[in-house]
């Protein structure tokens, strides 16, 4: 409750500041439209914005789900044996040397202008943070628990599955929280490189036609969607892992 009041308060102050800048500096609306105009545009174009927002949301959610699953599996493989670690780790490090943004045109070339090139982009951008957060947590199992398992004559596989993985879930959760913020970035970049749908596409389109108010409306919807996604992931993580 106090948090809601707090957030609403901050949002109101920001809107006032925005309006004040527009009014006082006498900015033309094709540079920075005021919040009033952006809201009117949002309302009159709500069907259009919703249509594109749905596409971006689908890209983000698919990218997040697949990237999280892939990151989970990769971290497990990394800790499972020194052999997989020696093969996978250099690949991971090298992949980090390639700027993910630079891959967007290639992904569009390979996967087309549709949904999947954006899903792949979102996936790639969150894959490393999820993998490394989970991997680090898996490598930091409290030694007392591992020794207990050894004295109990546990097999390494069961120790991994019953102790190390559950003990590392808070680490996985922090990776997911980061991913919830990164995934929309990936989807938008993918849309900028080549798309006919989505909020990123809509922003470029609006920009080209000097509809700056529509651009801002799309931008704000994107920001709100990202915040909601982050909050949802946070709630799920807290429920499941008290992290």
């Amino acid at each position, binding site marked *: 409750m106090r948090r809601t009041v707090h957030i609403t308060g901050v949002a109101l102050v920001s809107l006032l500041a925005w309006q004040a800048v527009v009014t006082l500096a006498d900015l033309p609306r094709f540079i920075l439209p005021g919040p009033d105009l952006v809201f009117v545009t949002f309302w009159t174009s709500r069907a259009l914005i919703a249509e594109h927002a749905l596409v971006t949301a689908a890209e983000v959610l698919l990218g997040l789900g697949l990237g999280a699953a892939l990151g989970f599996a990769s971290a497990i493989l990394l800790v499972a044996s020194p052999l997989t670690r020696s093969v996978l780790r250099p690949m991971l490090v090298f992949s980090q040397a390639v700027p993910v943004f630079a891959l967007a045109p290639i992904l569009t070339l390979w996967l087309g202008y549709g949904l999947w090139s954006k899903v792949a982009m979102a996936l790639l951008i969150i894959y490393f943070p999820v993998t490394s957060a989970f991997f680090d947590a898996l490598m930091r199992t409290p030694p*007392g*628990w591992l*020794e*207990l*398992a*050894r*004295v*109990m*004559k*546990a*097999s390494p596989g*069961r*120790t991994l599955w*019953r*102790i190390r993985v*559950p*003990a590392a*879930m808070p680490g996985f959760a922090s990776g997911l929280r980061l991913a919830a913020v990164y995934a929309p970035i990936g989807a938008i970049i993918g849309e900028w490189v080549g798309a006919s749908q989505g909020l990123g596409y809509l922003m470029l389109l609006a920009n080209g036609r000097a509809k700056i108010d529509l651009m801002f409306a799309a931008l704000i919807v994107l920001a709100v969607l990202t915040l909601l996604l982050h909050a949802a992931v946070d709630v799920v993580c807290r429920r499941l*892992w*008290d992290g």
Partner: protein
Amino acid sequence: MTAPPALHLSGRATIDGAPIFGPISIDAPPGEWTCLLGPSGVGKSTLLRLLAGLGDEVAFDGKVAAGDGAPLGGRVALMAQADLLMPWLDVTANVTLGARLRGMAPQRGRAREVLGRVGLADHAAKRPHALSGGQRQRAALARTLIEDRPVVLLDEPFSALDARSRALMQDLAAEVLAGRTVLHVTHDAAEAARLGHNVLLMTAGGVSCVTPPAAPTPRLYDAPETLGFQGRLLRLLMEAR
């Protein structure tokens, strides 16, 4: 449970070239409770870990053996100062962890019985964070009990408890672990005076055996002979170099 063996360890241990203890020799008779009393840092935990088959970081030059000549692996249960309960499991699941780690079905009936013995029957479905420190150590004791190993190694398991909980836990542990070979590492002379059938004093100078009162364990904490023995142990600790 198979017949409890005697325990023997002799030799010296180093970590990265730094001496930890020894050369020393300790023996724990079969089916009895042996306290290994010593100040912090003399290497008691290291010694216990060697007996448990742990301590990969320790360079040990000597011999660890059971009196019957058979390997110790798989015959040992370990209970440490930290309760090592998994926060994501309830008490029953924590107590039956060993079976599941070995790929066997958890013995829920046994768990209920053991939890009853340690007085946690009403807490079986709780998570560890909902328990007091004393209750958590009881759960750890139940987890140790259900393993049903003939050798039980205790590394200061009661030292974080308040005086009353500690005395109650000492009574309980003495009762439920009776008949097993127990090696109990402690820095508390009062605890050794209450629980040990045998008391080994471990100091930087080596290990010596101190004969405790004849009274059965757990000895009364305020009986004159217990207090007298406690005082003697403390004096020996103080006079050791």
